[in-house]
Each structure stands twice: as structure tokens, then as C-alpha cells.
């Protein structure tokens, strides 16, 4: 009888939820759209912007250089830049992004070079502006190459090998697999954050609607007059909130797997990719592990959401109580994205942060089984405690009939 009643309540809540536009939007539309938007859409848009900036022919002004015709002629030969006459207000033009860079060649540059005097070429740019940075790189490369050729000529003239100036080279060599290093690390943290956020977001509206919303609409008294016990009633409601949270998490995992699959197929690089050769993909194993870790988290979120919303008298009041919870959950989820925040035995016991850190590892294919056990176990304990509190809360007259 008891399980039957929980099932009846759950079925009814599910029927209502599937007819509620807001539930459908947070449960289905958001997770299915947010990943394509972030990966395929946003990533492709950024890649296109960068590509466009590189393809463009930036205008460059030159200050000085009248006494150094060879250098100026060399600059004019640099592909995809356009030398334009210097204007008085060149600085304003850089600030207003009309001219990306202005090169300042010191007086008597070529003669000083021949005399081997020290001097500095200035490149006036707009730091942080994509077009300016691209133009600066081109100019810098030209002068670097020019300097190297002069050094080479001087060494040759003295019959000295290049190794005089460069006795040895230093080169970092990444031994970590590309899918577990660089941009992929950030990528893992980002995905974990999105899963945690959407899991909470998915359960938020139904939790408020099924408790505070029912009080507000007057259906709470109707259902309390039926023979179903309050424990079974809240369990039926909890199961619905849990379903929406989990479906949201599952759809977001599926959506991210598909989205990044498409990204790789299209060979467009999302901004998260630090390395050119780091392919962003999520295997079935990683997606499944993230989903399994999301289960106790969804129980925890659903129970906390129900407990808080039950206390509220109206939907709006519930919203104002849940807002701080949203931040409380998102801060550890964001912290997990930060470089250097790694799993430790202590952090493995911090709710939300532990799952976020673990998901970050799982997505890049690292399985620390001892941590998985601790985190899954501790989250289950937190979830069970939260569910117990939710049931107790729902049985208190002072909460249900708070005036």
C-alpha cells in the first residue's frame, strides 16, 4: 500500500510536471541547448573571429625610418600588412582602434646597427585588442627575423658558429596524454560545473512548485485530507524533483558528448582548447561515470530544495530562500574549475566541491578509485541526511501551516 501510494503521487506529479512549460524548459530545453551553444556555437564563433582577425590586412604607421630605407622597404614586404602614411593623431587612432599598431624606428637606426650600438624599436599597440595583437605579432616577427639575420651575419664575419650565442636549447616536453593535459584540464572542470549547475537548476522549479506553490494554490490542504501519509506524499514529490534533476543532468551529459563530437568533426576549436592537438571528446565511460556521480548529488539537491521550499509560504518566498543556496552550490563548483585545485582527502568530504573535482578527473579519463569510493559514499550520506530532514520538515504542522 505504501509503495503504491508513493507511486500514485509520483505519477500524478510527473503528469503535472510534463504539462508545465517551465519544467520542460529547465529540464529539456536548457541542457539540450546550452552545450551546443557553448561548444559548437560559441566555440565556432570565437574561432571564426580569430580567423577573421588573422586574415585581415591591418594598417601600420611608421614613425621615423627616413634614414633607414632598407628596414622600411622590408616592412613594406611583410605579407598582409598595409603601411599607411603617419598622421599627427596616431596615438588617438590606436586608442580608437582605427590603426592597430604604430612602429617607431629610432633615429639613424641602420647606421647605429652598422656601428653596433644598442637601440630599441617601439611597437605602439592596444593591449588585449585582438586585431592590434595580431598586427603586433607580424611586426615583431619581422624585426626578430631581421635581428637574427644580422646576428648570423656578424657571427659568420667572425667565423663563429651560432652555438656561441645559443650553447643549448630548452624545450618542454609534455609526457601527459594530450586528452588529459592543457586545455582538456580546464575543459573537464567546465563540464563538471555545467553538470552540477544544471542538476540543481533542473530540480529548482519543481521543488518550489510542489511545496510552496501548492500551499499558495490551496491544493496542499486538499491532498492532506486524503488518506496518503505525509511521509509517502513527500517521497512521491521528492522522486519527481529527483527525476527532473537527474534528467537534466543526463541530458546535459548526453548533449555535451554529442556537441563536442560535432566540434571535433567540424575541426573547429573551442576556446577551452589550450593545445592544438588536444581533441575534446567525451567517451561513453566518462559520460556514464559523471552520470553515476550525479545520482547522489541529485538526491542531495532535491532533498535540500524540498526542505527549503516546504518552509516557504509562497513560490516567491521560496525563490528568495533558494537564491543563496544557488550561490552556495555554485561557488564550490566554480572553485573546482580553478587551476591548482585538486582532490585531497579533506576536499573529498566537501559536498559539491568533491563531486565537481571528481567529475573533472573522470571527464579526462582519470579514475582514482579510492576517491571515487569516498566521494560517492560521503555524498550518499549527505543525501540520505538531507532526505531525512526533508521528510521530517514535511511532517511538521508549524511548517505546513506557517502563517
Amino acid at each position, binding site marked *: *500500500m505504501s509503495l503504491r*501510494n508513493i507511486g*500514485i*503521487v509520483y505519477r*500524478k506529479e510527473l*503528469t*503535472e510536471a510534463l*504539462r*508545465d512549460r517551465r519544467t520542460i524548459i529547465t529540464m529539456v530545453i536548457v541542457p539540450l541547448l546550452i552545450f551546443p551553444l557553448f561548444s559548437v556555437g560559441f566555440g565556432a564563433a570565437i574561432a571564426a573571429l580569430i580567423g577573421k582577425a588573422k586574415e585581415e590586412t591591418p594598417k601600420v604607421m611608421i614613425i621615423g625610418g627616413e634614414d633607414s630605407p632598407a628596414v622600411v622597404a622590408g616592412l613594406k614586404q611583410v605579407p598582409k600588412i598595409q603601411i599607411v602614411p603617419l598622421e599627427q593623431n596616431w596615438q588617438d587612432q590606436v586608442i580608437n582602434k582605427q590603426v592597430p599598431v604604430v612602429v617607431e624606428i629610432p633615429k639613424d637606426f641602420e647606421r647605429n646597427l652598422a656601428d653596433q650600438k644598442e637601440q630599441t624599436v617601439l611597437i605602439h599597440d592596444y593591449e588585449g585588442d585582438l586585431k592590434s595583437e595580431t598586427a603586433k605579432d607580424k611586426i615583431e616577427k619581422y624585426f626578430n627575423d631581421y635581428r637574427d639575420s644580422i646576428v648570423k651575419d656578424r657571427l659568420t664575419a667572425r667565423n663563429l658558429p651560432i652555438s656561441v650565442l645559443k650553447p643549448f636549447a630548452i624545450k618542454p616536453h609534455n609526457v601527459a596524454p594530450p586528452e588529459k593535459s592543457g586545455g582538456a584540464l580546464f575543459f573537464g572542470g567546465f563540464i563538471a560545473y555545467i553538470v552540477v549547475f544544471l542538476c540543481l537548476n533542473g530540480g529548482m522549479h519543481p521543488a518550489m512548485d510542489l511545496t510552496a506553490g501548492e500551499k499558495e*494554490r*490551496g*491544493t496542499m*490542504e*486538499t491532498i*492532506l*485530507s*486524503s*488518506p*496518503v*501519509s505525509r511521509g509517502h506524499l513527500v517521497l512521491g514529490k521528492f522522486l519527481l524533483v529527483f527525476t527532473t534533476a537527474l534528467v537534466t543532468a543526463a541530458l546535459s551529459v548526453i548533449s555535451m558528448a554529442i556537441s563536442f563530437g560535432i566540434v571535433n568533426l567540424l575541426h573547429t576549436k573551442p576556446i577551452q582548447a589550450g593545445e592544438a592537438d588536444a581533441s575534446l571528446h567525451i567517451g561513453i565511460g566518462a559520460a556514464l561515470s559523471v552520470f553515476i556521480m550525479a545520482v547522489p548529488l541529485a538526491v542531495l539537491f532535491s532533498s535540500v530544495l524540498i526542505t527549503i521550499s516546504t518552509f516557504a509560504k509562497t513560490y516567491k518566498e521560496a525563490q528568495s530562500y533558494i537564491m543563496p543556496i544557488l550561490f552556495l552550490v555554485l561557488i564550490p563548483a566554480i572553485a573546482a574549475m580553478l587551476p591548482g585545485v585538486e582532490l585531497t582527502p579533506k576536499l573529498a568530504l566537501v559536498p559539491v566541491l568533491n563531486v565537481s573535482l571528481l567529475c573533472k578527473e573522470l571527464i579526462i579519463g582519470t579514475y582514482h578509485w579510492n576517491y571515487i569510493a569516498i566521494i560517492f559514499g560521503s555524498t550518499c550520506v549527505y543525501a540520505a541526511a538531507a532526505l531525512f530532514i526533508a521528510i521530517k520538515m514535511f511532517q511538521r*504542522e508549524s511548517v505546513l*501551516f506557517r502563517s
Partner: protein
Amino acid sequence: MIEARSLSKRFQDKKRGEIRAVDNVTFTCQPGKIYGLLGANGAGKTTTLRLLATILEPTDGTATICGYDVIENPEKVRANVGFLSTATALYPRLSAQELVEYFGRLNGLDEPTLKKRLDTIFERLDMNEFRDRRCDKLSTGMKQKTSIARTLIHDPAVMIFDEPTNGLDIMTARTITAFIRECRNNGKTVIFSTHIMSEVEKLCDTIGIIQSGKLLSEGTLEQLRDQHHEQDLEEIFVKVVAPHYVSQEAR
């Protein structure tokens, strides 16, 4: 049958301290009779009826409904009670039929019985035209009919009505009072609360006058008239709940 014995409910209020919403109330409602709980707003009517429907738990005393104790067997009590008030709203996203089915299932009805009872009630209340319409699209009258169907689906022996006609137009209110009479004629135990004297005069077999959580006077209309030497129920009511007011008026 309803038997309330020293039924009491106290609340703690931060500003006002302890509030005795229901204070040592004892009364009996018989099958086939209508018991009217008459009282002003805030007299304790709703709390008394919520205690009987086990929506609230008594602080002291108890009540039995069809032999089941409200504290020991609240679920059995609710299975024998149909509770209707203007505060008991309907689920907006369910159709009238789905809503009644939901309550039928929660009352333990099997599917064939549920279907049979549902068809009978919908036919009797002339609800077939809107049975598949969502509750948020129903008119006030249709909503009241759906609420009545909800309270009847498990054929309870006891009906509790908490100010059922409050805020309703005359035609909808008449549907409700006709339904209350029908419940009595079908042998159900009926208790209903109101502050409308005419409803009590028309419907009730026994009247209980409640004020500040206390049951101050009880009896049939005739008995109350004899006790208080007044013919008009309104005069009797004022005499019972505010004797000072009456003596001031006399002067």
C-alpha cells in the same frame, strides 16, 4: 459517527504567546444528521474541522470518526472522511477526471471500482461535458462540482464541510447546500461550519455555537430557542457569544 472528546488545539505565536484555538470541545455527530458549527471568523471552526480531518493533530483530548481515533489512526480516519472547503483547491494542470481518479486511487480503490464510481458520480453531477477539461479552465461552478466528486469518490461515511459556500455565487452555493442535504439523506454523518445563520436554520439538525475555541451552546434549533428564550437564531447567537453586547443594547 463523529465523537469529539475534550478536543483542544494550542498554537504558539511569537507576539501573542499561547493561543487556544480549540479549547476542550466535546460533541457528537450522528449518522443521517447534519451538525452545524456556528461561529464568527476566528472562533475556531476551521481548526476544529481540521482536527477532525486529521490535517492538524490535537494538543489535548481526541476524537473518533467511525470508531477510528484521529491520533492513533489518522490514515483510517481520512479514508472515511470527505473534506471540502473553499480552501481545498484543485490541481490546475490535471483534468477533472484525472483529479478525481487520483484521489480515488489514494483512497485504495481498484481500477474497475474506480471507473464505475467515477462514471456514476460524473453522470449524477452532470460533469461529463467537462471531464477531460483541465481544472484551471473550469468555471467556479464546475470546480465546485469537481471538488464534490473528489470528496465522494471513496464513498465516505463522514462528510466535513468547512464554510463550503464562502465567496460563492447563489447558484453555486445552492448546488453545495443541495449536496449537503443529499449526504444526510444517504445516511452520512455531516458536520459543517458556517457563519451564515440562514444556512444553519435550513440545514442543521444540531447546532453548536463556538467562540474563542469553546463550544458555548449546543442543541437543536428548538432546544436553543427554549434555552435562550429567543426565536431568532441571530439573536440567540449574539446572546451566546457576546452577552455584554446584548445587555448594553437593552439599556
